[in-house]
């Protein structure tokens, strides 16, 4: 139909387009090499900071970032890496960030380290996988990066008995290839800096800088897209954590964490002690409180709380007020058989601690009536709590918490669904029932 010459040009055009795209992706991923005077990048203000203040700041920053919790394997040496992170794209092991010459950061300098945080690239130029939250760490200032590096340098250099597997070896093909990572980065990652909002207080700015950057709150508290990328580091609209299977509630919605209706002091107390009022840090958040937020300085806790609360206030103004009637309807649909089974199980297993009106015991067991965790649309966390029970984080302010027994071996899916439906429809609670199928899926996704 078309002359051969047309096809020749057509093909050539595609080659040129593909080539240009390739070059663009390549340039995009190695912009650190082209950046004006990358060598002359501020060799920092280290001169003004002596080593002790640098390390002291670094220690604070390390806790703000909760770096060592991910870079330490269960029972392993602090910072020596090797903790496995399961993702929908395969496993990734955290790296060794002790100053070991061969396995860790021993041969790195402050600039290499900053390049990893800011550009998401290893010293050898390897593109890092976004399991390392460089969408967030890119906001960290060079000064803070240097302080972090100084304190990592002071860790005990530790070699790994077995070399930690690289993402290219552990991720499903083709996600771990450098091409796939380069394309991902061009689509979803732009190196950036935190821009101070002039119309906000220094405290608010400090809070935003911590929450969006080092503390990487949105890494869990926001839904990732099909490619595992976040829309915004300042999007805290909640999300189901893949594989781990916990729902990190929205920090801005009035329905979920309801930070807009809390005082700054209450938010601070939650981050510092792991609980405040009815709110209780459980699952992955208990780990964050235990290893990170309880150790933050008060001024940082306040700054982050002010920032999150203001953000929540702003969002809640645009949120529809009361929930719709559809929820009430679903309650009416729940079969009386399920409700009576739920009530029976509640009386047998739950009432002793959570009391007959779901009011709990102050200081020991949380109330279930009007508890935001009970009212979450997504029942995942409730199912997790009933299956595995457990303790809240033991913190300086709550050193001897009360615990909940696991029911994974005593109650079946039907019974757990019934008892959860019971507590979601009693004492003024009016939310969707939980089905045995939902419980079954969540149970099946957990390890043994």
């Amino acid at each position, binding site marked *: 139909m078309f002359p051969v010459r047309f096809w020749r040009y057509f093909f050539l055009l595609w080659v040129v387009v593909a080539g240009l795209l390739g070059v663009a992706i390549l340039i995009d991923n190695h912009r650190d090499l082209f950046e004006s005077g990358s060598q002359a990048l501020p060799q920092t203000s280290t001169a003004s900071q002596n080593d002790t203040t640098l390390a002291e700041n670094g220690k604070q920053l390390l806790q703000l970032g909760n770096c060592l919790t991910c870079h330490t*394997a269960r029972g392993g040496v602090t910072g020596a890496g090797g903790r496995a992170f399961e993702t929908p794209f395969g496993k990734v092991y955290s790296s060794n960030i002790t100053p070991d010459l061969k396995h860790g950061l021993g041969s790195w300098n402050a600039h290499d380290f900053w390049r990893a945080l800011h550009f998401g690239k290893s010293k050898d130029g390897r593109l890092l996988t976004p399991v390392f939250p460089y969408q967030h760490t890119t906001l960290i200032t060079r000064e803070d990066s240097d302080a972090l590096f100084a304190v990592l340098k002071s860790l005990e250099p530790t070699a790994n008995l077995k070399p930690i597997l690289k993402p290219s070896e552990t991720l499903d093909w083709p996600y771990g290839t450098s091409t796939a990572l380069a394309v991902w980065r061009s689509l979803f990652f732009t190196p950036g800096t935190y821009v101070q909002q002039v119309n906000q207080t220094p405290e608010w700015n400090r809070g935003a800088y911590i929450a969006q950057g080092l503390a990487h709150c949105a890494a869990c508290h926001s839904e990732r897209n099909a490619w595992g990328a976040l829309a915004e580091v300042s999007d805290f609209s909640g999300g189901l954590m893949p594989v781990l299977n916990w729902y990190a509630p929205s920090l801005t919605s009035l329905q979920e964490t309801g930070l807009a209706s809390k005082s700054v002091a209450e938010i601070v107390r939650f981050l510092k002690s*792991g609980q405040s009022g009815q709110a209780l840090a459980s699952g992955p958040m*208990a780990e964050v409180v235990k290893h990170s937020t309880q150790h933050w300085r008060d001024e940082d806790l306040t700054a982050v709380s002010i920032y999150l609360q203001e953000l929540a206030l702003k969002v809640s103004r645009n949120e529809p007020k009361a929930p719709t009637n559809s929820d009430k309807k679903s309650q009416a649909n729940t079969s009386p058989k399920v409700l009576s089974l739920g009530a029976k199980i509640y009386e047998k297993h739950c009432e002793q601690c959570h009391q007959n009106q779901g009011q709990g015991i102050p200081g020991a067991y949380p109330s279930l009536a009007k508890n935001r965790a009970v009212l979450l649309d997504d029942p995942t966390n409730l199912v997790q709590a009933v299956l595995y029970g457990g303790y809240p984080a*033991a913190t300086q302010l709550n050193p001897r918490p*009360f*615990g909940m*027994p696991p029911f994974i071996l005593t109650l079946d899916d039907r019974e757990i669904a019934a008892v959860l439906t019971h507590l979601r429809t009693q004492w003024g609670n009016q939310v969707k029932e939980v089905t045995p199928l939902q419980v079954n899926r969540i149970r099946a996704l957990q*390890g043994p």
Partner: protein
Amino acid sequence: MFCLFSNLKLQGTLQALFAGLLLGLLCLSPGSVWAQGKAFKDDMAERTRACTACHGEQGRAGPDGYYPRLAGKPAGYLFNQLKNFQEGRRHYNLMARMVDPLSDAYLQEIADHFAHLKLPYPPAVQATERISDRILKQGKKLALEGDSSRGIPACNTCHGTHLTGIQPNVPGLLGLPLDYLNAQLGAWQTLQRKATAPDCMSDIVKRLASEDLVAVATWLSTQNTPLSTAPSLKISAPLKAPWRCGSAPELSKAQS
């Protein structure tokens, strides 16, 4: 006068008996305050409800023959096990999730709580099928004499002369269900259960065949506990070199 006195004494004894009987009934009746625990009391029993749900009331062992007893075990041993779950030397998801959020200080307090509970042991469970004398003999020999040809010390070298453990770190071996003993020895064999290095128990299990493990577990599970089940307070003889135990360094302390 004498008569009156003896009468009083008798009365006192009767009263005591009666009170004891009442108290006993109160504890046994299913509707009792203790059994239902209706009243909230801020104590360690309340704080360890998550534990006793599986490990039995007061940690007296679970009803299914798997969850081991906690009551009266040496505090150091219990603490080490909690840390082993937290640090991945023992593997049981449920336990790991339970202890992950807790601090060392609180884990120690929980360990102390169960260690101080003094509860009588139930009699050893009689096996449903007949166990061959050969297995029992082999198990008894390993437990009480060891096997010098393979360099295997006897259980009672470290676990107390009467196998009731040694304070503060070595557990007793009696009064445990056969399923639990088998599962633990099997876990040592497959490296699913470890202790702080140098891991003496792991080295011993490595030298034993599966039949030996079954034999020793079977013999241990059929033994009644002695009158005093308290762990010994001191080591009878130091563990001979080159054996060393990371989780119970005191055993080899007297080694020259």
